[in-house]
């Protein structure tokens, strides 16, 4: 081939499934605008609640002695956990060559990045003096003092910023070819418009040359491999916020892997829910197909079983050890004031997923999304039980106390879901939620494989542009 190689593979007038993907990006869509406004209002609520808290001191929360951590840390761990969706799908499935991941990678990575943005706000929100947050960062200061690298909170900062950076890169890189496609479309239809200029900027000069493709593939492959240990380390480090203390039922060696498993589990749940909403809202049945949901649900039930195993192991060893302080926490969890939350969690995280997803009908999109909602709630409860359940039952029982979240904490929690939604809605209006070039690549490989008589991907080149 010689001459210009166009990077758009379809003629603008063709009606393809891809036009479903491109529809949100062609102009204002009433549904998306409405969604952005509603979630935008929640973002405004976030500003209000957080501003109120800064103005009237952190005492406006329901925290107290001994519950020094409550909703904010629960939500922090929750959102960081949600962020593991992308890593599993894009990275692990990519590295292991699972082809069904292709339609799903981008919406999963988007969840990762936005969940990290939301979750990363929470350590700031929960501070007593948030305007001094930079004391925790290893930047040179006039005080000639570095942060305390012994502290798991400093590890958190380092880990989360690393993960966020990596995830943004990992989201941005595969966006380049798709931005190029959009640039070319918009240049053809409305060269002087805002979108044409936006996508020209975002595409960063992508021409689709073999060298560029090669660099892109290299970059994505490297990121995929790197991001997996980073993700594992992030949630391990977040779990070490608890495990590195000596509090009963926090100080447990199982926390690292337990939290990573829980994170992946909750991440898949959020992914299932998001996928279902996208499928229905944007008409993406072709891409987010029943088969994809089925495969994801199989992964989901596997994670449910692993999570159940870890939970069982943790509780059995505590029970057998019969150590006084731990049993006080354990009893509150199993049969005391936290029992309603604990058993709800067990039902939502183990009973429902296993019994529903074991059947093919249960792995249909709607069913699995509903199970996903249950798991999201269940995993949130798990974090709450761990954080508040231990703190309420201190070793010196004289100082036990209860915790009631205040309206500020509830408001911030709800508005953070809104922030997540808002970021997602904005993203939907500027980037295709299914990676166009990856899906095409997958189709091409399958087509080639059929032609040659094998299902193995043999060639990794883009189809001929016409």
């Amino acid at each position, binding site marked *: 081939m010689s001459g210009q190689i166009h990077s758009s593979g379809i003629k603008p007038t063709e009606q393809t499934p891809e036009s479903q993907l491109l529809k949100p990006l062609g102009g204002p869509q009433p549904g998306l605008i409405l969604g952005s406004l509603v979630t935008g209002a929640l973002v405004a609520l976030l500003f209000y609640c957080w501003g109120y808290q800064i103005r009237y001191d952190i005492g406006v929360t329901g925290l107290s002695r001994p519950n020094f951590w409550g909703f904010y840390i629960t939500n922090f761990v929750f959102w960081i956990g949600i962020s593991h969706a992308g890593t599993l799908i894009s990275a692990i499935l990519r590295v292991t060559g699972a082809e069904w991941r292709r339609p799903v990678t981008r919406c999963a990575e988007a969840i990762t990045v936005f969940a990290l943005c939301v979750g990363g706000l929470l350590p700031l929100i929960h501070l007593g003096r948030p305007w001094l947050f930079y004391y925790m960062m290893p930047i040179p200061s006039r005080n000639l003092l570095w942060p305390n690298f012994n502290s798991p909170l400093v590890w958190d900062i380092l880990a989360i910023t690393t993960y966020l950076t990596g995830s943004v890169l990992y989201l941005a890189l595969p966006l380049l070819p798709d931005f190029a496609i959009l640039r070319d479309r918009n240049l053809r239809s409305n060269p002087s418009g805002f979108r044409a200029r936006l996508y020209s900027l975002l595409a960063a000069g992508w021409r689709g040359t073999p060298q560029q493709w090669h660099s892109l593939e290299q970059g994505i492959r490297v990121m995929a491999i790197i991001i997996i240990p980073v993700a594992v380390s992030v949630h391990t480090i977040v779990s070490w916020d608890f495990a590195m203390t000596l509090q009963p039922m926090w100080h447990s060696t199982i926390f690292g892997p337990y939290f990573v498993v829980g994170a992946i589990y909750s991440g898949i749940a959020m992914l299932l829910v998001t996928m279902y909403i996208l499928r229905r809202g944007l008409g993406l049945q072709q891409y987010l197909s029943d088969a994809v949901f089925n495969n994801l649900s199989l992964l989901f039930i596997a994670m449910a079983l692993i999570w159940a195993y870890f939970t069982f192991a943790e509780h059995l060893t505590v029970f057998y050890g019969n150590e*006084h302080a731990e049993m006080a926490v354990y009893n509150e969890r199993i049969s005391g004031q936290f029992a309603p939350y604990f058993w709800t969690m067990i039902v939502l995280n183990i009973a429902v997923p296993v019994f529903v997803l074991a059947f093919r009908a249960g792995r249909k999109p709607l069913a699995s999304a509903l199970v996903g909602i249950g798991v999201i709630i269940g995993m949130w409860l798990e974090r709450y039980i761990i954080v508040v359940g231990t703190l309420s039952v201190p070793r010196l*029982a*004289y*100082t*036990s106390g209860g915790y009631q979240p205040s309206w500020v904490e509830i408001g911030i929690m709800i508005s953070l879901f809104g922030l997540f939604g808002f970021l997602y809605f904005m993203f939907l209006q500027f980037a295709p939620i299914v990676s166009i070039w990856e899906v095409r690549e997958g189709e091409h490989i399958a087509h080639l494989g059929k032609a040659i008589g094998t299902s193995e991907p043999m060639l990794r080149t883009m189809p001929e542009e016409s």
Partner: protein
Amino acid sequence: MRRRDFLKATTLATGVSLLEACSGPEGQYLVQPARRKPGSPLPGESTWVPGMCQQCSAGCGIQVRIVDGNARKIEGNPNHPVNLGGVCALGQSALQELYNPDRILVPQRRVGDKGTGTFEDTTWEDGLTAAVETIARTSPDRIAIIGADRSGLTGALWRRFSEALGAPAPAFVEALELEVERRAAQIVLGVTDIPYFDVSHSDYVLSIGSAFLDRWRSPVHYTRALAEMRRGRPGRRGRFVQAEARMSLTAANADEWLAVRPGAEGILARTLAGILLSSGKIENDNAARYRKLFPEDPPRLEEGAALCAIPAKKIERIAAELAAAENKVVVAGGSAAGHQDGLFNVAASLGLNVLLGTLGKPGGVFAPASFGLEDGIAPKTEPTSMAELATRLRGEGPAPVDLLIVADADPVHTLPASWQLHATMANVGMVIVLSSFRTDTTLLADLVLPLNTQLERFDAVAPAASIGVPVVNFSEPSVEPLGDARHPADVVLAMAAALGEPIASQFPWASFPRFVEARIEEQLEQLPGSQGMTASAFIRLAVERGGIFGEEPPSLVPPGPLDSTILTSEVTNTDAREDGEYPFLLLPFESIKTGDGRGANRPWLQELPDPMSTIMWNSWLELSPVDAANLGIQDGDRLSVQSSAGSLEIQAVIDPAVRPGVVGMPLGHGHQDYGRYASGRGANPLDLVEQTQVIRTAAPAWAATRVRIKRLRSGALSRFGRSYTNEEETEDIPVGWAPQETSRYASARPLPPDLTQGTPDPGTTELPVVKRRRLG
């Protein structure tokens, strides 16, 4: 204008405006004049000024830290014999009395309806004029004076004043049990005031009813005495048994608590006496003296044990321990005095000292000691009792009351509501209240004259609770007075002077310090350490030291024959009255936080958790888990409590140490308006107490009221520690339990080497014999 003046003016103006600018937000910077008086402290430098604590009648010696003219901290005076450097919670909080934002600092005149406490500022001149005019035109038999300082110099001035006016003797408001205790001491020991119990040198202390570590008599002194009894003599640890109807802080600290049935304290004492008498271990002289006091046969062991609800074997053991101890003492008083046969209870308990021969012996009972500074100021007539005055106020006395002066007391809050003081005082034509705060009594005033507080005044006060040796505290002001408040004695002197002859000549002293100086002058020879000094020099010395301290305890003369019919028990058991309508006995008690109520306006004390219930900012009703279960009451529930005299609403605390059938409630709350920290908070148990009196006295039987309880709705209390819910904590402790073995506080491994170096010094007094023993 000349140039020089112009420059000066502009410089001054600039300087002033710069100063204003430099003063920062809310006076952040302290602008100091360049010149200061030589010898005055630098900014930020501390000086320590000796003083006396007047938060209760114990009279501890303190020192105050002054920085930049403000009092910052109160510490004990280590050389003062009452407290030896210790300060209790109430004493520490005195600074919040001094700097209380709701203090009355200028005289007030009533402008609204009586009882609403609507006042406007007035001047001392106008106030005193109004007071004196009223006194002058009121018939003396219609004047009534209520004071707080029964046995001190200020009280003596009030007594002199009422004598000069021809008015009836003043009445004094004091702790509810004191009258009965005094009477019992008079009968049993022949002394005029409550004796001193030498706990620190004792080997066995049996306290019947007297919560001497709570707010009884001299808590700081007795706390130190108990500490010395336990750990002050190496190898010799005294034993302390508390027989009390409820588990007070004192009972909680006892080696053993005898949960005697309320009202049966006297029976317990008499039963013990019976065992002792028949044991053959009592000296004949002592037995004879005892029998003169109590000629009746003591109750039989089984009968006595049943009546006071203590197992017979336990009573036998206590008697044996008492007899066997080398130094012993029986402390008596407190809640035992609050029942109808309170006089019998206290007298019978005190009588055990006579039986055991502890009078004047180390570790025993000593006569109250006093320098008698107030002798001769006023006639020795008995003060009017508050009960009698209450009768007069109700219009049932010989003459109504047209003028009432209340000096530094709060009778409306600290006496039972059934005495109707609130309503009857409101009917008095003119009520003059000398007070710093809007107490329940102050709200009824027509004229309020503000009093200064302990750190702003010169004073000379003898501790009301004797510590065995005579003591008089002296203090000078340690801070500039806030506002325009005065000492109550100065108010008396000012009124006397304004009344003119013939009264003024009986008060020839220009001020209270002059008066004290005159007294000291008269008695100089008798006062220790005064040789060769003038009165004013001696007072200087006394102020520096904190007071005048005697050395020798007066001897205790064993009592002669007395009218012993006073002491037979007429009512054996107040809660034997089977009363279905009022099934519970109410036991009010003084909490260490609020005392008689004066501490309620201090945020430190309101936020201080009560040591037993851990409740903050409120009062409560404590009931036993058994009663709570029967009534379906949970911890914190709101209850309605009713007696035949009144009712109130209160919240419940479930307390495992409460006797079934009995409920307890702390005094000190339930003020109508005592400042922002106290007003409308909690309830006052004295609203429920009936008008019953202790037999043969004019004192209220404040522990003899029965109540019924109704649950209103659920609620929650501000609690600092965990409520009693954990059953683990009630495991029976096996016999021979050693704290190290089972307690979760125990050390599981030996102490690290840096704590076990060196050898113990055998000369140190506080150590038991040390054996280096590995634990665990």
